[in-house]
């Protein structure tokens, strides 16, 4: 469904006229199938968020391609409502001038439905993420971190996309709330049968929700393993990462 083929990405360091180049992603190729949950794990600065931006079509790769069902993902029409995202920083994920209702309306407006259908859909979405309809009129600064992130998740599933990218979506929440959101994500996946691309540096969370994990290091794929085989990873780096958690 989503296929990444020999993608390279680099940034120009320093000012506009600078020539120094920093290679962030090198020769990445992988696929994410329909309804699959793929975890992307790596240290800070390994290029996870950059890869996420490429997968979402927000930036173009220098070379190689990111295809969604055969079309280039940079093309606005190819991803129209099919791909969605939840970001790490819940405080800046919702426009501070929008109420919860308006925030949820934005993706719904992309699809042609009438007013009443949209209203019903908002109630349904809020219910699915465990918020009651009284939240409709609240502004983002009136929500707790967990509630805001739930609204973001509701907004992400609103168009019933085929794939959702979660970039550190639970990292800035605290322990028990992280667990609740993970459960929520799991249950939503059952309802909508979406693919998740779950970017995190938390192996435990990845192990809990993912079918497959990809470990990246300095912008290269270090290893790709099924979650059942997570214990017997081959590469030394992946071993080290796992060791840190087990001990």
């Amino acid at each position, binding site marked *: 469904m989503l296929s990444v083929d020999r993608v390279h990405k680099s940034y120009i360091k320093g000012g*506009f006229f600078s020539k120094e180049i920093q290679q962030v992603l090198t020769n990445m190729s992988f696929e994410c199938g329909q309804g699959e949950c793929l975890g992307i794990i790596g240290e800070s600065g390994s290029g996870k968020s950059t890869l996420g931006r490429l997968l*979402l*079509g*927000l930036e173009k790769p220098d070379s190689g391609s990111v295809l969604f069902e055969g079309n280039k993902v940079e093309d*606005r*029409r190819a*991803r*129209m*409502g099919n*791909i*969605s*995202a939840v*970001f790490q*920083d819940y405080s*800046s*994920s*919702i*426009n*501070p*001038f*929008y109420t919860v209702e308006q*925030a949820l309306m*934005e*993706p719904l407006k*992309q699809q042609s439905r009438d007013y009443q259908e949209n209203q019903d859909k908002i109630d349904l979405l809020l219910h699915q993420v465990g918020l009651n309809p009284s939240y409709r009129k609240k*502004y983002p*600064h*009136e929500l707790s971190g967990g509630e805001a992130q739930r609204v973001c998740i509701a*907004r*992400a599933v609103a*168009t019933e996309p085929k794939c959702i990218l979660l970039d550190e979506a639970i990292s800035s929440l605290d322990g028990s709330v992280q667990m609740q959101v993970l459960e929520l994500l799991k249950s939503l996946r059952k309802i909508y049968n979406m693919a998740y691309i779950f970017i995190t540096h938390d192996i435990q969370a990845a192990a809990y929700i993912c079918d497959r994990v990809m470990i990246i290091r300095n912008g290269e794929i270090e290893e790709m393993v099924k979650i059942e085989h997570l214990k017997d990873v081959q590469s030394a780096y992946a071993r080290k990462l796992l060791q840190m958690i087990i001990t």
Partner: protein
Amino acid sequence: MKRLQFLLKDKLAAASLSILVVTIVAGIFAPLFAPHDPEEVHMELRYAASSWEYLLGNDHLGRCILSRLIFGIRPSVLWVLAALAVSVGIGAILGFIAGYFRGLTDAVVMRICDVMLSFPGYVMTLAVIGILGVGLENILIAFVLMKWAWFTRIIRTSVMQYAESDYVKFSKVLGVSDIKIITKHMVPVSLPDIAVIASSSFGSMILQLSGFSFLGLGIQAPNAEWGMMLNEAREVMFSKPEFMLAPGLTIIVVVSAINFLSDALQVALDPKLLASKYKLQGQGPASTARLQGKEVA
């Protein structure tokens, strides 16, 4: 509309807004409000004190000061407002394009702005007056020439900061068009910033125009203008200082009203500040300092 209600709950803001509305209406319909012809000379009434017929007295040519103040609103406030609107308009368009699309456009627009901003403002205005001649419209042209670059810079900075936020990223992911993102997200969130910088520089532009008129570079006699009225009163500054009072106070009141309103606007337009204001009644707007600090006179 809801925001306007919040704004009006603030008494100072409501008072400032009404002063400005009255001023603008009086300026537009000056012939209806002014009791006399502002240019009618009565030599027998020179420096007359206020009377029932001439509420604020008469100036050195016996003209009605109140009528001159009212007619003075047109150049002093309305034309300045027009010049402000033009420069903010140019600044907003260029600022939104540069700040949202970044890249080469941004680099080019910003370098042009840098060049424009490296001219000292007053010298530029004087140079424009030197080339085009003395007159109100030339000062206004000079204002637009000087200010657009500054507005572009500030609006671009504000837009850029919002363009990187996650809700804009989310809209882009959804496939919302750039035009829609700009109108639905960028314009509402940067409007408070624009309103604050525009209103704070409105005050300073009124002062500058009055300053240039005071120096005799602006509107020419016998037209009424506040700065020029001050200049005319200057001749008798020591013998009859009260003649400075009417134009001087008017300028102070109007400019202060604009400044108070600009503070209140920022709070009223920002749901977050508004909420904290209702919790901690009476606390001043904390972040107004942020953009106003950048004001160049």
